[in-house]
């Protein structure tokens, strides 16, 4: 359990973190969301003891990070934005070194490392130099490093950034499996990514907490913002006119138009619970305008902030 109380970090006149408070419960995955520069990494660096806050407290399982740093740090495994890897060591040597740093005794070491290595799936690169590994493997070695010493809390700063889609899915799976026995804070600037793995979400913006909510409540709040994107073969102006006539449609904005096809962004009224997709489909079919693409648009972070701060 982590209790964060009124954290402030000042850089000169600028407050990178301005009064952030929240708690992370045991065995909970907390998504930490915010645009770039919102103060996510700074907050995580403070929680892990890498930086000191200007004011405010962080308690890790009851231990203050400044007053009892060694006890607090034992409870935390941290994967920073750039994994702290020694490229001149093999994975084995590196994890052995981390065991030394975290004071894992020799007799427990082999068992613990075996478990971690099979969990994060790095056994095939165990004897290779870290500098020669792909980004996905480096990220996994970074996660393995965080897990050494059996910390009850894992703090992962943008663990999927820069990975290819397959690797992202792998890492997500890994995080889900870790969630069974760890409290996890995971940061990202992509909403959908957090929604998949997290139980609760803390959204921060400009150094302040904009919202703390469960994922399902957050989705409910955002349901008023449903948007569809449709690309079809047909005239743009008539298309807009026709789609507007469908009940429940709030606005239709043209996205793109050329000789081959038109693209519309359709916003649905917030109180409309009806699914208008079939209505649109039949209407387009009537007009013989084939639909080439039809999908719902994820709300962007900016829209999330707007909808949250508007209420």
């Amino acid at each position, binding site marked *: 359990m982590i209790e964060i109380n009124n954290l402030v970090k000042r850089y000169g006149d600028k407050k990178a973190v301005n009064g952030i408070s929240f708690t992370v419960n045991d065995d909970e995955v907390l998504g930490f969301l915010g645009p770039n520069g919102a103060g996510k990494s700074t907050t995580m660096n403070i929680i892990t003891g890498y930086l000191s806050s200007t004011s405010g407290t962080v308690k890790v399982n009851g231990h203050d990070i400044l007053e009892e740093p060694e006890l607090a740090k034992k409870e935390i495994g941290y994967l920073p934005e750039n994994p702290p890897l020694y490229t*001149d060591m093999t994975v084995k040597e590196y994890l052995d070194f*981390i065991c030394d740093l975290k004071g894992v005794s020799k007799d427990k070491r082999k068992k613990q490392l075996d478990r971690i290595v099979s969990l994060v799936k790095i056994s095939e690169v165990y004897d290779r130099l870290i500098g020669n590994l792909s980004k996905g493997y480096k990220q996994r070695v970074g996660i393995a490093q965080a897990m050494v*010493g059996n910390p009850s809390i894992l703090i992962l700063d943008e663990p999927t950034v820069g990975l290819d889609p397959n690797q992202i899915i792998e890492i997500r799976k890994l995080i889900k499996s870790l969630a069974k026995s760890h409290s996890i804070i995971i940061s990202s600037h992509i909403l959908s990514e957090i929604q998949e793995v997290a139980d609760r979400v803390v959204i921060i913006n400009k150094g302040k907490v904009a919202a703390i909510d469960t994922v399902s409540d957050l989705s409910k709040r955002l349901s008023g913002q449903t948007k569809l994107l449709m690309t079809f073969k047909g005239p743009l102006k008539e298309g807009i006119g026709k789609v507007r006539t469908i009940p429940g449609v709030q606005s239709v904005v043209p996205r793109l138009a050329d000789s081959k096809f038109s693209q519309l962004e359709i916003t649905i009224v917030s109180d409309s619970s009806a699914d208008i997709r079939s209505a649109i489909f039949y209407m387009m079919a009537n007009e013989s305008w084939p639909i080439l693409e039809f999908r719902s648009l994820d709300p962007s972070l900016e829209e999330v902030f707007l909808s949250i701060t508007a209420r």
Partner: protein
Amino acid sequence: MYAIFKREFLSYFRSPVGYVAISIFSFLAGFIFYSQFSYGTVNIGSEVISLRSFFVIIVPIITMGLLAEDKKRGTDILYYTTPVSLFNVVAGKVLAAFALYAVMFLNVVIHIIVTLACGGQFGVGAVGTIIVFFFMAFMFISMGMFASAITDNQIVSAIVAFIFILITQLLTMMSEYAGTAVTSLASTIGIKSESASSAGSAVKNFVGWFDPFAKTQDFRLGVFSVSALIFLLSIGILFLYMTYRVLEKKRWSQA
């Protein structure tokens, strides 16, 4: 501390750095020993004293990466977020660099064995120079480590260490110059020649007080001075303390 020491020491041999440093030292030591040997009179003490002049090249090579490399790679975060203390980090790293020096010094041990085997002398004066050598190595390594703490660029770190050591090695000369300069300056502005020369020698003594080479020059004669060793040790510890403060300050940085 052992974990840091082990990693740092082995990392010298994962890159060319350790081999380069050992090669340079072996070449220099071997060359000096050979020229003495070919004349038929070997003096281990003067070999060790000659080797001291190369601190200025070898120490920056082995200290430049100690902390700068960590900062550049982002691995310094491990020192702050794991239970290891910064004191242990500093101690482990300085010991690793020192151990590399000890390995290099094995050259001289071989020379001693050869000398004794050929019926040469290895007196108490030579032991004195070796003691001074290691205390100086510690002091210069600490300076180099501090230079490595204040930047994340290895080249800058090496240059700063080079300048620190160069200044220390030139202190004997600099104290002479400073003394003469003060004396002549004082006479030109009309101070009596007696007072002028005493002012000059006061400045010379003051600057010279910091000169570790002058402080330890009698060791080669077998005259050991504990206070001189404490002086070397203190300067070394002072730089290690400053290194520690630089690392600690990073956590509180406001910029």
